[in-house]
Each structure stands twice: as C-alpha cells, then as structure tokens.
C-alpha cells in the first residue's frame, strides 16, 4: 500500500525531528508528540513538520540555555578577532592598544599575550553573560512574587 508506506516515511521523519529536541524535553514530551502525530488524521501534514522544526530551534536556542554558551563563545571570538585585527594593523592602534612584546614578535611574549588575550576574552564574555542572566533571573523572581500576590 503506497499510502501506508508514505505515511511510515513521514512518521520516521517526524520521529527524527522529535529526537533532535534537547534530551530533557524529548524524554518528557517526545512520546506524546509522536502519539499526537499518530492520532492526527491528516496523514502528517506540513504544518506538523513546520511546528516540529520550529520547536527544535526554540528548545535549543531559547529554553535549553545553550544560547548562553554560544553567546560566551561568540563574545570571546569577537574580542579575539578585534585583538587580532589590531595586531595585524587592520584596526587603528588608537582603538586597541597592542603591547610592545607583541610588536617585537618575541616568541615567548607572543604566546603569553595570546593566552592572556584568550583568557580575558572568555572571562569577560562569561561575566557579561552571567550579568545578563542574573538580571533576567531577578525579573523572573519579581514576576513570581507578583503571581503569588494574585
């Protein structure tokens, strides 16, 4: 039966989309999502797939906290790129100061500078993200207190 075969293919695709969700969400709701797919009488409409893909992105980017790690890495990379550009003369020295050791190109000084630069970049990004997250946590606590008053 070609209809049943196509339906099975769609189901496999949908179960693959469900499997792409973060583990916590998948363990809690994965079976229920597949159950809904099986119960829906529309043969696995495009809307279900669109919703599934959007859900994967939403869960990873907004709900799982992975964005914090990505933001920290992106911040570190941006800072290193800025530092590297200054070093190679692409950004005016007036904006980013390059220490004399790096100018001389001394091997030890260079390595030290690189380690210091990367460490600073990662630490600063971490602090920025933690501060940002802390602010939103306070906002959430405020909302929870408001809810309790209701």
């Amino acid at each position: 039966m070609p209809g049943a075969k196509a339906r099975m293919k769609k189901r496999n695709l949908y179960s693959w989309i469900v499997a792409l969700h973060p583990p916590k969400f998948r363990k809690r709701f994965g079976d229920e999502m597949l159950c809904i797919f099986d119960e829906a009488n529309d043969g696995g409409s495009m809307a279900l797939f669109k919703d599934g893909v959007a859900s994967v992105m939403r869960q990873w980017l907004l709900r799982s906290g992975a964005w914090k790690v990505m933001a920290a890495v992106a911040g570190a990379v941006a800072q290193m790129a800025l530092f590297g550009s200054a070093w190679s003369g692409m950004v005016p020295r007036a904006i980013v100061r390059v220490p004399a050791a790096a100018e001389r190109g001394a091997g030890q000084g260079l390595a030290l500078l690189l380690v210091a630069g990367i460490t600073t970049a990662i630490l600063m990004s971490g602090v920025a993200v933690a501060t940002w997250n802390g602010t939103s946590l306070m906002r959430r606590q405020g909302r929870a207190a408001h809810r309790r008053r209701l």
Partner: protein
Amino acid sequence: MKDGFDSTPLSPAVLHILLALAGEDRHGYGIMLEIARQSSGKYKMGPGTLYDNLQRLLSQELVAECPRADAGEDSRRRYYTLTGAGRRVLSAEVVRLEGVVKEARLCLARKPV
C-alpha cells in the same frame, strides 16, 4: 515557581491552553482539538508549541498532570488539569479582556464608520 509568565496579559497560546483545560482534564491531542473547536478552526496549535507552553505552565504550577481517564488508552497519553492558581490566572485574564472589550465598544460607538 520558576520561569514565570507575566500574570496578564497572557499569550494567545497560554490563554487557549488554560481555557481548554478549564472545562475538563485533557490529554495533549485533546487540548489541540479543543483549541481548534474554541477558535472555530482559526487557531491550530502544533504539538511543539503546545508542549513548550505546557512545560512552562507545569513549572509555574498553573497546570498539573493528573491520572488518566481510561486505563485502556494509549499508554503514551498523559492528562493535564488546571490547578487553583491556573484558574485564578485565567479568571484575572478574563476580567482584563472584559475591560478591553468594553473599552473597545465605547471607542467604536463614539466614532462609527
């Protein structure tokens, strides 16, 4: 309670989920069907959107899981019920919406097309 919703206004998805559970306990697909019925088919919520909101409503304790209605049903089905806090939030939202509708009617009556 973690990860709070603003009490009101509620998002359309949250409002519809709470409304679907106000009458009786339902499983996920039952909630989706009830939402489609309430909106005359204009608002169709997918499972991803449904469970994203349910996850937050559960952590907020506005919705809770409850025992299944029929032991012979698909074992993957889980039933959800509205808690007391959920009912209070829904009532507050209904009062807010009544105010909005009243104000809208007044505005429209003042300057008819």
